[in-house]
């Protein structure tokens, strides 16, 4: 069976190659080739899943060694795949949601002349993402890691005739590169510590390594995760990434790629378990981000950016859970999967809205859309209920567990983390309700655009609504399916390990607290946006609102410190290179020129002057000879 693993990656990779190299000939069928190969990968994933289910829990790891990639003295990197329960979960999520979004894109990108290219990039993304989760060593994982970065770059900048899209793509890649730097340093640290960076040797020898090294590795892995998963302080790219087509936002910037950081941390559980200091930092980062993202999400009027803030916040939950150690790993992944469903669904719904509204994204120009697009409204609504943790829906199960686990951390930390997670839940309820109300309820607020085209909101075609429906079903049922009988826990436990924490509060108390928060959040939002009409122009707002609209000033900080500083640095270096480094050399040359200008005067053209110097030279030679003899 393990022979099939390579096919998982090969199928979308082949699609990408065919679609990108094939040229215009494939324009008419390209999107179906892409969708087909993505689905093929999903089917292979299902086959492998069935195979794994048929085995004992201990034997559910398949290894496929393909070839030795980099063989150098003392350094060996292989192209080896590992399919275990953790990777299997991701494979199904990636290929499943991926195939749905391929299907959705067939409709969404219908009028784009570069649709074939779009599907090529999507397939490339799938291949890279699968490589990321299937790699058996960190270097191969790194390949996938950067590969998804590249695909993300290409897709964010897909409409690259818009300068804003091109800039956003570049920003995403650069910020990710900073994270990648962390990953590469982590790999180097592993190499110096363990002499290897394959999962087996590293995890097997954690006990022998010094605490300092392990903490360093953990922090570097966290840096990588921050980059990819848009965690503070490397979160600034995610909002801008919404410049990409909406299916991209759904697939890459909600369901899969941005969760790669969580995968990395959970995958490296052995390292983090042995480095509590690093774990603590992980929880702090997760907590800060979940509040940060939630606050940003409250202030945005752009529906996609509001959802992006929400994504950031939800991943903050996952990172928080992953940082809690064995008590949280499983729930991090569970929330990741359910989030994959409902957030993808929400984005697809947003895309559907934009599709019907001439690509308008400002929620202040929506309103009352539930009448015009019922399917979108229902699926979006189900996603909304799932994310705020409405009892019985998937978000309820997964998020609740994380909050519980946070309290179970114990001590003051537990109270702080758990409290923050509860506050986050309240804010989540607020901003999601706000999105819901502004988009689908109230008066219709759209106006004709500059050219006088009145938007005619309409339901999207079936090719788009079917994926939305499937995802909505997933977000409704997923949580219950996973949690009842601890199915998900038992499935993942052999890989990540699990332990029950000693929570100072009981599970029931947490659930009640969460419900209270939820009601508060929804209530405030309804008071603000449901009872009174939404102004078409954003009010000035409080200081916090204004800061949140600007992503809590992170971009301004980056601009002033990094961009401006960098510009000054490079500009002065260019100047210095010319005037100082080159100047020294040119100055030497000019000096020699001046000197020879002086010396040239000796060359006066009179043969007798030359004769004097010859004769003087002869005299010196005689003198030298005599001196040599005398000595």
């Amino acid at each position, binding site marked *: 069976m393990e022979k099939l693993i390579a096919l998982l990656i090969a199928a979308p990779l082949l699609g990408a190659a065919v679609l990108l190299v094939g040229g215009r000939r494939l324009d008419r069928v390209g999107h179906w080739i892409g969708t087909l190969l993505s689905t093929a990968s999903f089917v292979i994933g299902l086959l492998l899943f069935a195979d794994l289910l048929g085995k004992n829990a201990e034997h559910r790891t398949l290894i496929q060694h393909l070839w030795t990639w980099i063989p150098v*003295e003392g350094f060996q990197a292989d192209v080896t795949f590992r399919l275990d329960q953790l990777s299997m979960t991701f494979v199904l999520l990636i290929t499943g949601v991926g195939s749905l979004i391929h299907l959705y894109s067939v409709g969404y990108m219908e009028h784009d002349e570069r649709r074939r290219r779009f599907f090529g990039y999507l397939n490339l993304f799938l291949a890279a993402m699968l490589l990321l989760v299937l790699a058996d060593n960190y270097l191969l994982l790194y390949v996938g890691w950067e590969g998804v970065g590249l695909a993300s770059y290409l897709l964010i900048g897909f409409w690259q005739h818009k300068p804003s899209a091109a800039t956003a793509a570049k920003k995403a890649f650069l910020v990710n590169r900073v994270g990648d730097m962390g990953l590469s*340093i982590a790999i180097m640290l592993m190499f110096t510590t*363990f002499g290897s960076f394959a999962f087996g040797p590293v995890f097997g020898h954690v006990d022998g390594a010094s605490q300092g090294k392990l903490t360093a590795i953990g922090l570097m892995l966290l840096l990588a995760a921050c980059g990819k998963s848009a965690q503070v302080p490397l979160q600034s790219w995610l909002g801008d990434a919404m410049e990409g087509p909406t299916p991209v936002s759904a697939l890459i910037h909600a369901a899969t790629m941005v969760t790669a950081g969580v995968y990395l941390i959970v995958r490296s559980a052995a390292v983090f378990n042995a480095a509590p200091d690093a774990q603590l930092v992980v929880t702090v980062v997760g907590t800060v981000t979940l509040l940060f993202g939630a606050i940003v999400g409250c202030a945005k009027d752009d529906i996609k950016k509001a959802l992006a803030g929400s994504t950031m916040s939800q991943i903050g939950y996952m990172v928080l859970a992953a940082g809690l150690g064995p008590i949280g790993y499983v729930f991090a992944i569970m929330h990741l999967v359910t989030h994959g469903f409902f957030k993808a669904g929400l984005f697809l719904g947003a895309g559907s809205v934009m599709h019907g509204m001439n690509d308008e994204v400002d929620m202040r120009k929506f309103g009352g859309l539930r009448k015009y697009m019922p399917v979108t409204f229902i699926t979006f609504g189900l996603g909304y209920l799932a994310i705020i943790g409405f009892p019985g829906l998937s978000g309820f199960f997964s998020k609740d567990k994380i909050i519980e686990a946070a309290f179970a951390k114990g001590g003051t930390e537990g109270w702080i983390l758990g409290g923050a997670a509860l506050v986050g839940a309240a804010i989540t309820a607020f901003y999601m309700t706000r999105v819901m109300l502004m988009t689908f309820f109230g008066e219709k607020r759209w106006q004709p655009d500059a050219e006088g085209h009145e938007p005619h909101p309409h339901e999207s075609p079936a090719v788009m609504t079917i994926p939305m429906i499937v995802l909505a079903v997933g977000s409704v049922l997923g949580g219950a399916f996973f949690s009842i009988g601890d199915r998900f826990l038992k499935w993942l436990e052999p890989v990540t390990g699990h332990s029950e924490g000693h929570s100072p509060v009981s599970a029931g108390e947490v659930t009640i607290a969460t419900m209270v928060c939820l009601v508060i959040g929804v209530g405030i939002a309804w008071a603000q946006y449901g009872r009174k009409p939404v102004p078409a122009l954003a009010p000035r707002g409080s200081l916090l609102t204004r800061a949140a609209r600007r992503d809590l000033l992170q971009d301004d900080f980056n601009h002033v410190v990094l961009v401006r500083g960098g510009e000054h640095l490079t500009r002065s270096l260019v100047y210095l290179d010319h005037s100082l480094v080159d100047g020294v050399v040119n100055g030497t040359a000019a000096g020699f020129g001046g000197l020879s200008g002086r010396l040239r005067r000796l060359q006066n053209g009179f043969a007798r002057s030359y004769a004097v110097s010859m004769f003087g030279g002869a005299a010196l030679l005689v003198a030298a000879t005599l001196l040599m003899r005398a000595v």
Partner: protein
Amino acid sequence: MSFPLLTATAALPALGAVATAAVPAARRTAAKWLALLISLGTLALAITVLVRFDPGGARYQLTESHTWIRDFGVRYELGVDGIGVALIALTAVLIPFIILAGWHDADPLETGNRRWRPTQGFFALILAVEAMVLISFEATDVFLFYIFFEAMLIPMYFLIGGFGDRAHAQGEEAAATQRSYAAVKFLLYNLVGGLIMLAAVIGLYVVAGNFSLQQIAEARASGSLHMATSTERWLFLGFFFAFAVKAPLWPLHTWLPNAMQESTAPVAVLITAVVDKVGTFAMLRFCLGLFPEASRWATPVILVLALISIVYGALLAVGQRDIKRLVAYASISHFGFIILGIFAMTSQGQSGATLYMVNHGISTAALMLVAGFLISRRGSRLIADYGGVQKVAPVLAGTFLIGGLATLSLPGLAPFVSEFLVLVGTFTRYPVIGIIATLGIVLAALYTLVLYQRTMTGPVKPEVSTMPDLRVREVLVVAPLIVLLIFLGVYPKPVTNIVNPAVKHTMSDVQKKDPKPEVEAVK
């Protein structure tokens, strides 16, 4: 006596250069085809070398040895180790593409000029450079190496000074002035380096009594040739200076941007992808091989200079307005990596550095040649003159992007493997330097993507709206390079297999062992 394969490999392009130059003025196209065929023949010979070379065999293979100047112990000694083979292959692979890419670069300005001869000269000079570079990679006699190391400057001088971009913002006269400035600067820098090296070569002869690399290395290893510490250090510095100019290492780098900026794109590739490799190659073969103690002594300073090159080159690349200058500074940054890998004195670092030479050659060729195609279409080197090219010429933009991604060492493409090996090799011995060098990864992304964004994306500028996409000849140049980049990125084993034994020898030359990992993991 067996067939002198190495001599033949270098002699074929040399003879080809003469033959190409002798083609009558009116038969311009014939000269081009002749040069292309000769370069392909050389490639065939180089492949034969590659096949005949046995990675598990002796250190130097396919050796040839003849007395040349008896009185000074100068011998015509050739031999290749794995590093040499890899670089010979790189050179032989790149030259046909360079010729093909420069197919029209030396055509007469007005058609029908039957007396125009520079076309023949252009291709003859390229072949001459190839011959000299090849023999530099093959020579195991220090004097023989020196001669060709220096002689290379002559054809390069004419290539830089005689053939520039056709279109120039300030007119042909200003272009000629700047070209000759660049050519003279190139010549002077390298000449000064070469002369200092000549002094060291003579000094080496005085100390050792012959010029044979193998004999001297053996004598030093067996202790029969004792060299005073200070003597060894001075000689090392003499050699290293010349190679550092050629490589080029900060702060001896300023000739490179000028030379690459003013010359045509194929010549710029010739400079940075082929000729400069002789410098880094010679550091491995001569500096480490002849002066191990001095190499260890100088390591800290050289590592810091290499580090400065990496960061400095990348930062300056960010600040450039000229496409070719940008690539030049990026190359300086990459050469910093190569030198870092060589002097980290670990197996990974040195294997990585050798691999880096090969990969950098291919990736720079891909990026620079596509940039050349772009420049020849619009007639401007300024980044600001472009915008939205992706829309009108998607294939050009796509290949440009892949070249750029290779430059920023994207995993999956060849340069990543080498860059990572260099970083790991450095990190195991010098963690701080390794971490700072990693910063180069981020900066590389910055300058590449800024370049791509400003030229290829955004609204289509009116001047580029009629730009044609890549032609068949141009696709023929770029596509194989991209295939190579991907192949070597996914499966670099063929190269590492050849390189590894040679690196082992070099490591034993300098008497260095790789640092042991903290925890000995079971393999």
